[in-house]
């Protein structure tokens, strides 16, 4: 079975690229890249503002993907698997919860984001996708799990399409590399080499 990459999305360094073409670029020195991207996309989704940065980033990456591939919204509602990884887990929100805790306060709106997989939930809610998901925590240099598990989900017919990649937001730095993969002979082959190369771009 050959999995081909049918869409690329990357966010970072003040820009958004879809299939390696820049679709949005913020001016140098821009603050709050994620809000700027939101305003450009204008999805009319106020829940965005309750999300932490990790979830905002993942949400926006998939919004761009669905904008490029509107037919993804027409797929069977459990056909799409979300398979993500990052290195810092939810440590940004964890730090915020800890800071508040040091002052004797615990906010449920902060605490709920102290789990990295919440980004999967936000994407699933937005798109009404009831499919498989997995969240791995590890460095960019080791993405074998993302490849092996996504392939096995599709091979075992637990999913037809994978939205897979690295989503990291920590200390104001945002880094997203997502691929759409499916069984097809077109597009670059989805494997550790192609995924690692894309992450290194």
């Amino acid at each position, binding site marked *: 079975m050959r999995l081909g990459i049918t869409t690329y999305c990357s966010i970072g360094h003040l820009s958004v690229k879809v299939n390696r073409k820049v679709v949005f670029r913020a001016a140098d020195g821009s603050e709050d890249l994620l809000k700027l991207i939101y305003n450009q996309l204008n999805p009319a989704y106020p829940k965005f503002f309750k999300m932490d940065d990790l979830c905002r980033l993942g949400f926006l990456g998939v919004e761009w993907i669905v904008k490029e591939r509107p037919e993804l919204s027409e797929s069977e509602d459990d056909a799409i698997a979300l398979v993500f990884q990052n290195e810092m887990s939810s440590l940004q929100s964890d730090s915020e919860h800890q800071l508040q*805790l040091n002052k004797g306060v615990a906010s449920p709106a902060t605490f*709920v984001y*102290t789990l990295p*997989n919440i980004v999967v939930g936000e994407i699933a809610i937005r798109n009404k996708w*009831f499919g*498989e*998901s997995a*969240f791995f925590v590890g460095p960019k240099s080791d993405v074998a799990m993302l490849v092996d*598990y996504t392939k096995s989900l599709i091979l075992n017919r*637990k999913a037809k399409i994978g939205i897979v990649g690295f989503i990291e937001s920590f200390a104001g730095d945002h880094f997203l590399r997502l691929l759409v993969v499916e069984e097809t002979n077109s597009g670059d082959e989805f494997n550790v080499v192609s995924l690692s190369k894309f992450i290194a771009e």
Partner: protein
Amino acid sequence: MIFAGAEHIVSPLGNSAEENFAAIIAGKSGIRKIPCRAGGKEPELFNVAAVRNFGDFPLAQELKKSVTASLEKVDESSLISGKTLFLLSTTKGEITELVKPGVVQAKLDVLRNKVIRDLHWFHSSAVISNACISGLEALIVGHDLIQTGNFDHVVVAGGDMLSEFTLSGFKSFFAISPEPCKPFDKNRAGINLGEGVGTIILSRNEEIFASKPIVFCGGATANDANHISGPSRTGEGLYRAISRALTTCSVRREEIDFFSSHGTGTSYNDEMESIAFARCGMSEIPMNGLKGYFGHTLGAAGIIEAAVCMQSLRNQELIASTGFEEAGTSKPLNVLLSHRKTPFKVLMKTASGFGGSNAAAIFRTE
């Protein structure tokens, strides 16, 4: 076929799966009322399942010991010569490190490296963090990666520790029960947090296990697509996870002899589960929730509770649910009220978690 064995548990109930199972049979619970820090100026008393005192569980060390203990129950040379993966399941890892400046020591990767530092022979390793389904998901991932030929063996370990970080958070959700939890009961009032570690080894090769292993059929996960903390009112994600698990495992619902649910003891979670189980036609199948013995051990729950399920299959003894006195869900459940020695073959384990995640996995005797 893929096998599961060499299960090991560290919890307030003991330092092996056998010791934990014996304690459960004897009617013991790991939950007791002890002083805990929950964000206030002073410690307060909470019902938790602590191995020693609140916040002092040496997670990395106990994970290492558990993995070592499990490896002693298999032919380690087969794992060394074969292609073996190590999977760590945890939600917060050594979260108490976060009170110190800098976040590096709290990274889940750092924990993984500590656990397998002396075990260089693992071909690869990874950390899975998917809220409270992490443990069951790690088992499912491990199964699938053996099935597709990526690996010969997978060592799956899960662990989480009690901490002010977590307790304060759940307290802000009003999710903490003042009393020992009562899964599915009319008067249930929330969760008790717990801590512990567990290890289970998966392999395509039955021969590596010192004792006859259990057959592990794998399973599936699904998202509620509803709310990031509140469960789906229709139990959508759990319903789909169970349905998909039955399909992927080629097991019919009628073949399930018993199931062990997530059963946290909150009003909404248990209600959601009763709806999902009813939609799956499972309302009459005897079932339990194990969190009355261990508390909610988060990233360890899927492993510890699966290990108890494996012991249950080995001993052909069904384990009772705890704290259940009066039915308290809109859909009926066949909650087992006392342990029952009876021949049985097929057991389903489920889990649900924040982020709308749900998982279901199936174990059977050979």
